[in-house]
């Protein structure tokens, strides 16, 4: 499996961060950064990282299954994450999520057929004082109203 030179450079740098013989420490960052490039944690990717770190594919698989941000299926080009945890709930997060469901015609963890959008109801994303908050891919949007959500989604090409 081949990666971009930028990702290879990032991997090489990462592997220097850990004590001798403990390079497995790089597994989660490698999965996260590779997922961005590959689009999902594929079987091939898990096998490749297992080989590079000297662990089994099963060990990579059990780690992948544990973390909510690692996903084996591709998400939409724009992954819309609406927080409905307490701080957001108090400021209309649940209504915002319902609105997003209708607007995108998607449910929790669903991806549109054309692959443009996917939706997820997420737990606290750390924007509680500026609630309700959403993330589109890695970008935060604070104090989101239904109107503002429409604007954000319509602005994504």
């Amino acid at each position: 499996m081949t990666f971009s030179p930028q990702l290879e450079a990032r991997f090489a740098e990462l592997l220097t961060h850990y004590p001798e013989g403990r390079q497995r420490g790089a597994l989660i960052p490698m999965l996260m950064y590779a997922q961005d490039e590959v689009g999902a944690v594929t079987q091939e990717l898990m096998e490749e990282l297992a080989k590079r770190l000297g662990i089994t594919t099963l060990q990579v698989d059990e780690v992948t299954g544990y973390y909510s941000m690692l996903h084996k299926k591709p998400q939409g080009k724009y992954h819309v994450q609406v927080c409905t945890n307490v701080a957001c709930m108090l400021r209309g997060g649940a209504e915002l999520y319902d609105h997003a469901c209708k607007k995108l015609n998607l449910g929790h963890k669903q991806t549109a057929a054309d692959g443009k959008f996917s939706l997820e109801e997420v737990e606290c994303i750390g924007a509680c004082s500026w609630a309700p908050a959403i993330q589109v891919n890695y970008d935060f949007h604070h104090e989101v109203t239904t109107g503002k959500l429409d604007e954000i989604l319509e602005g994504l090409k």
Partner: protein
Amino acid sequence: MKLYNEPSPLETRVISKRFGTQNSWRVDTYLATGGMQAFKKACEMTQDQIIDEVKASSLRGRGGAGFPTGMKWSFVPRQSELPKYIVVNADESEPGTCKDRLLMEHDPIQMVEGILIAAKAVGASKGWVYIRGEYRYLIDHMDAVLKECYERNLLGKNILGTGFDFDLYTQTGAGAYECGEESALLESLEGKRGVPRIRPPFPAVSGAFQCPTVLNNVETFSTVPAILNGGGKWYADLGTPRNGGTRLVCLAGHVNKPGVYEVPLGMNMMYFLNEIGGGMLGGRKLKAIIPGGSSCPILSAEECDVAMDYDTMAKAGTMLGSGGMMVMDETTDMVKVALRIMRFYNHESCGWCIPCREGTTWLRKMLARIVDGNGAARDVDLIGDLAQSMLGRTFCPLGDAAALPTISLIKKWRPEFEAYVAKNPFASTELVQVA
């Protein structure tokens, strides 16, 4: 970098003093505003002197548990063949908490300096800043900050000519609340599932890669330079006895001016809410406050006239936790709050130990059937009993974190739960379908 909310003139800005100023995250700005003086001071001190100064400040961990920081550092063995490490908990995931983000956005080198001082105090050579995966923008930002620190010799070999070497890296999480628990965080740092370790041994003796490790929250490290600059006593005197200094409080919910504010420990909660937070949204009546993240027992309006420090909050039966304060007005449905809190802990339970894995699942199911109108009369007691039986019976505090708010909700707002149940015509039947 812009601030997300206006600061208040009533704040005591010790660790947030550079927030919102131009280029506050750059090395030049940091050095021009008194940065690295504390580290230089630390280099003239013995290890014991540094730890004693931190002890004198009565600084307690700002991540949630409130353990005295100086004491934590003193547990690291002096005579050890093993390398020693520093790990920064930047996994900020406790619902209601959004302060560590700001410390790393606006004044990341203050945290780096605090880490260097801790490293000096315990003789550590290497460290990681473990940042939750959702904060990718912040990981990229910290990578740029660390790069500049290396270029300007604030990190690396012979730091600022002091002869001290230290390496610091970022490490991304991948979405797991449990990794904010220190031993689960260390598992994750080693490339494993984030499940807690049995203790002892504590991280001070066997932490990252089984070596002695100091593990503190972002805010805790960020506070250390001010303590060395001003002296432990000066810092302690900002707060109340045994509860030194200031802390960042993340105000959220039904208030006019939600935001992150730095206040001295011991400030009255109602004063904070009204004078800094601008009072209740829409002039509505206060019903309840979650004082420090969703794992804290919830205070009813009558209990909120209380000083915000660790000891007073403990007396009031709750905690200052991670500083995530969520304010609820009279329109809030406390049964729905209970369900939303439990959905979170059930989702985040790592599954390692049974009381938490099964307990949060059953509590979520029972709360959901009450909200859905299928609750049985006996459910209210059963929820309280089940939550009670989880307390202290799990590997890590996640079980307690799920149980504590639930117990307080059932105890203080029982009629609301009963009102839901009363609407179910079959509430008294023994056989109730499980959701």
